[in-house]
């Protein structure tokens, strides 16, 4: 856990350098963000769509790197921006699928889980763990995390600070699942 904290502190410093214009910080930041974006996208989308959604989310995050405020934790900011983008990609994909498939298509919730059983089980376990952890939060934090995970409306910029605090609490609650 100390290593994870050290990693996050290191990421904060790297992101501050990138926001300042230091291009040498790009690669370590990208290597840290890519698997996280992919995991987040896989929670909501099928494998093929998840790769595209992760790329789209990363593009969004890096195009807004200049907006990052040095000194603040980077991961909540990253997750808020990435989750909003993945939410938007998922919504666009659903709309496109509904348009092209017509009446013969599977319902959206079934189509989203049309995956191999092992992956479905892993996803169900992870979702259950997150749902349990969210139950332990106060209602405001729970709604902020729900918005971040795309179960509610996208976040307004002023809500991101709340997400930052809620994220820290959720991470604490999820420690027992690691």
């Amino acid at each position: 856990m100390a290593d994870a904290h050290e990693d996050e502190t290191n990421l904060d410093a790297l992101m501050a350098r990138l926001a300042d214009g230091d291009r040498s910080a790009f690669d370590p930041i990208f290597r840290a963000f890519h698997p996280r974006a992919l995991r987040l996208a896989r929670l909501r989308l099928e494998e093929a769509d998840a790769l595209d959604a992760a790329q789209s989310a990363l593009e969004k995050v890096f195009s807004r790197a200049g907006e990052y405020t040095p000194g603040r934790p980077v991961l909540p900011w990253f997750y808020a921006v990435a989750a909003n983008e993945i939410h938007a990609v998922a919504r666009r994909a659903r709309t496109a699928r509904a348009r092209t498939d017509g009446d013969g298509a599977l319902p959206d919730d079934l189509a989203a889980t049309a995956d191999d059983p092992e992956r479905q089980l892993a996803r169900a376990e992870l979702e259950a763990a997150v749902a349990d952890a969210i139950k332990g939060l106060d209602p405001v934090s729970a709604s902020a995390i729900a918005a971040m995970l795309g179960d509610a409306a996208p976040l307004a910029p002023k809500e991101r600070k709340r997400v930052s605090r809620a994220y820290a609490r959720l991470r604490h609650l999820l420690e027992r699942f690691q």
Partner: protein
Amino acid sequence: MMPAAEDTAFVRARGASLKAYERGRWLKAGLHALLFWLFAALLSVAFVGPSSLIWSPLALVAWALVEWRGMELLRGGRVGALAGALTLVLPMSVLRRCCKPGALEMMGADCCSMPGACAAAGVIVGLVLACFLPTQGRRRDMILGMMLGMAAIAPMKCSTLLVGEAFGLLGGLVAGALATSAVRVFVGRQIVRG
């Protein structure tokens, strides 16, 4: 070990993200340069006159470049722009004594537009700016940033003599940097001996 598809996706996403990062920086730099240009144009119209606006696109280009690269170039650019704005606001007679009303007859009517006078002012500004240089790190970028920041705004004051002022500024910055380095090395040695 990443699967092949994920590996390809990683490389593709890295390229796209790097492009997005540079695009984001250009966008932000463009917006800031536009505000900077507006500020510089207002300042030059108020203190010099509308004819000075001919050099205002330089402010846009120089500031966009400085903001896009960031880091020491931007930090130096801010100091340079501040110094440039000061030269723009100060009366001509403060920067060049021969521009004082009544002095023209004695020194020749073209004194105010002599490159030498502009270069001397540049040297003085350069020496002052050199005091803001850091002791370590990318001093070269900082000097370049100062020059760009200065070049973005000061030429509006000396609109016909950009080259003379620029060379004066460069000489002043280099001389100032060398002088401050020499003083620091000398003081450092004295402390070690003591």
